[in-house]
């Protein structure tokens, strides 16, 4: 079945081109290589394309004999760097070239569960199986430079043998179960045992199946051998899937019958048979090279860029940069102009800020001067004692029933007034008078202390017309400056202290 991609199969002896023409029909052109050099191969490829009449679209480049060496390697557990070095060295050894002249690509394959125990028993350790492809760097680079020069685009580069294994896996009804893949090539027949994405066994029968009838017998025998090997490794299990690629339609049925005897009970899918979806013959083999699957190894070779492309890229970059720069410059210029205008308008609105601040400072100084003068005036007045307040309070407190004889006012932090006087010689009456006087004085909001020293006869409870004098101390709170940190609730303060022995 033709795939979507054109196929260019390259070996050092021939070039094959497979594509679908404008009429929708698949075609194959094979051109022998006259000169076994990369240039000769490229020339043959151009002739093949010219002959097919296909337009030069990008194709899958399939490397065959002479360009790629495929191998399967078992390596013991190694450090990552060592694995790389060993794979590179083995690839160089396969091509018999110095490592510096060898390109390689390798993929680790998982050991199938069915074989894991037997492999470990035999080797005593867990080895890793590697799928590897090796190319000569010089000839590969030359080849792809020539192909590019001829205008042949590269979609991807694959190894023909591994790509066809993908087709085998893709054709399986049970891809994870073991299968035998038979690849009938123009120079050899490959017989592989594949489990999932792992090649567990492989053999090669040299010669062209179509030209040598003995190869058919050898193939049947090889399939039988591999079945026996698998039974031995898996303790009696059998391989129940066989896929054959590249069989010509006229011999496909015979081959199928022969393989049926080698793998009785197995499901046979032979390309070219009526009941197979796989296209037979060489064209089928070529289409199979376009298959994707677990055996993919990208063999794209890095070649120097075309100077024209580099220049074009540079030019594109410069153009993009310049275009973007011009556009952005315009955008920024417009935005900057708008912002500058907005800022200038705002600046204009605040031009008289300094004048306003100066005026505000002047007015503030004016108010502060007023407040300061008021404070000085009050402070100067507060230097004295509350003479008038205490004298008036003393006279009011004594009233008509007691008479003031002396009044002494001294500075005691606030003002301390010592008042002496005389009152009634009736002890009961005198006590009432003096109690009332003390209470009246104590009710004054600024008075903090009232001490009354009553006449001695009150203490004795006797009448004494000679000693009816008394003494009273009034203490008025100093005029302190208001301290907002100490605020007493009305009625909750300590109130004046009223002493004496009344």
């Amino acid at each position, binding site marked *: 079945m033709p795939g979507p991609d054109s196929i260019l199969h390259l070996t050092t002896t021939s070039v094959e081109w497979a594509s679908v023409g404008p009429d929708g029909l698949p075609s194959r052109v094979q051109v022998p290589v006259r000169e076994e050099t990369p240039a000769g191969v490229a020339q043959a490829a151009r002739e093949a394309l010219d002959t097919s009449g296909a337009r030069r679209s990008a194709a899958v480049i399939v490397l065959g004999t002479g360009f790629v060496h495929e191998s399967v390697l078992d390596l013991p557990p190694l450090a990552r760097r060592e694995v790389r070095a060993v794979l590179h060295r083995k690839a160089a050894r396969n091509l018999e070239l110095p490592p510096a002249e060898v390109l390689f*690509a390798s993929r680790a394959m998982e050991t199938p569960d069915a074989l894991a125990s037997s492999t470990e028993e035999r080797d005593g350790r867990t080895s890793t199986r590697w799928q590897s492809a090796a190319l000569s760097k010089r000839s590969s680079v030359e080849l792809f430079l020539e192909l590019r020069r001829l205008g042949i685009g590269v979609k991807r580069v694959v190894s023909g043998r591994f790509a066809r294994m993908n087709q085998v896996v893709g054709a399986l009804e049970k891809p994870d179960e073991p299968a035998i893949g038979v690849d009938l090539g123009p120079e050899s027949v490959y017989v592989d045992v594949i489990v999932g994405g792992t090649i567990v066994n492989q053999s090669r029968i040299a010669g062209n199946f179509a030209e040598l009838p003995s190869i058919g017998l050898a193939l049947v025998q090889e399939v039988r051998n591999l079945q026996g090997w698998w039974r031995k490794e898996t303790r009696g299990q059998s391989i129940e899937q066989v896929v054959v690629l590249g069989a010509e339609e006229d011999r496909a049925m015979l081959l199928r019958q022969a393989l049926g005897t080698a793998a009785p009970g197995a499901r046979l899918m032979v390309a070219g048979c009526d009941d197979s979806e796989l296209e037979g013959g060489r064209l089928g083999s070529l289409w199979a090279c376009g298959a994707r699957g677990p055996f993919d190894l*990208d063999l794209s070779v890095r070649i120097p860029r075309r100077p024209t492309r580099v220049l074009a890229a540079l030019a594109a970059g410069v153009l993009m940069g310049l275009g973007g*720069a011009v556009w952005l410059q315009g955008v920024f210029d417009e935005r900057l102009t708008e*912002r500058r205008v907005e800022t200038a308008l705002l600046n204009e609105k605040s031009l008289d800020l300094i004048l306003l*601040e100066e005026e505000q400072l002047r007015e503030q100084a004016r108010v502060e001067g007023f407040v300061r003068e008021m404070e000085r005036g009050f402070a100067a007045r507060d230097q*004295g004692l509350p003479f008038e307040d205490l004298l008036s309070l003393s006279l009011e407190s004594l009233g008509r029933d007691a008479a003031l004889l002396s*009044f002494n006012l001294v500075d005691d932090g606030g003002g301390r007034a010592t008042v002496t006087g005389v009152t009634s010689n009736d002890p009961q009456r005198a006590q009432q008078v003096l109690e009332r006087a003390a209470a009246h004085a104590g009710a004054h909001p600024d008075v903090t202390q009232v001490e009354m020293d009553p006449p001695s006869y009150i203490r004795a409870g006797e009448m004494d017309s000679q000693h009816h004098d008394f003494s009273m101390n009034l203490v008025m709170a100093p005029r302190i400056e208001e301290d907002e940190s100490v605020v007493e609730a009305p009625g909750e303060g300590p109130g004046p202290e009223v002493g004496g022995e009344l």
Partner: protein
Amino acid sequence: MKANYHNMRGGILSRGALLILPASLAAISLAGVTIQPSMDLRALDIEERDALQRVERCETLRHDLASFHGVQGPRLADLGQALARDLIPGDATPLRLFAVTRLAADGLGLDLDGVSPGSTTILDLDSELDRIVLDETTVTGRSDVARILAFLHLLEDLGHPAVVLDAALSRSTPDESEFDFVLRLGFYHRTHLPPEGAEAGSTDMETMP
């Protein structure tokens, strides 16, 4: 172990070089064009924010000043300051204070035994223009309470208010209408600030906090 090893390609940089190269050039060009304007825009942002704050400050100041002027603030403040200054009389000499004391006492019929000047105290109330001092004067005599209190009021009415620093009144019997009194008065008034450095040598004044 799942791994892939190869030496086929030069990595993503070489694979994508033809894309990365123009993109880098374009990016560098655009960066070159945009950096300076971006910085300019940033500077303009800051300038505009500052300008906005200045405009808001202007509006606040204009509003406050208009309100202050609207209630005749400057005139009232000047008037208040002048009135406040009048609460404290100007410079007064000891002779003047003696004369005022005598005048007030005579006017009220106070019987003064003596008027003796005392020390001068500098109050800690200096302003930029002047200072306030307290001149002490001790007044002794004999009078009734009402006239003693009226005497103090009259001193203030005569433009020389005095505070009482201490006082003593006494009489022998309640029958006497008059008291013997001793009042130590403090006349507070303004005085000029001394010239710079002149205060260092002064010894006849004390400072009261």
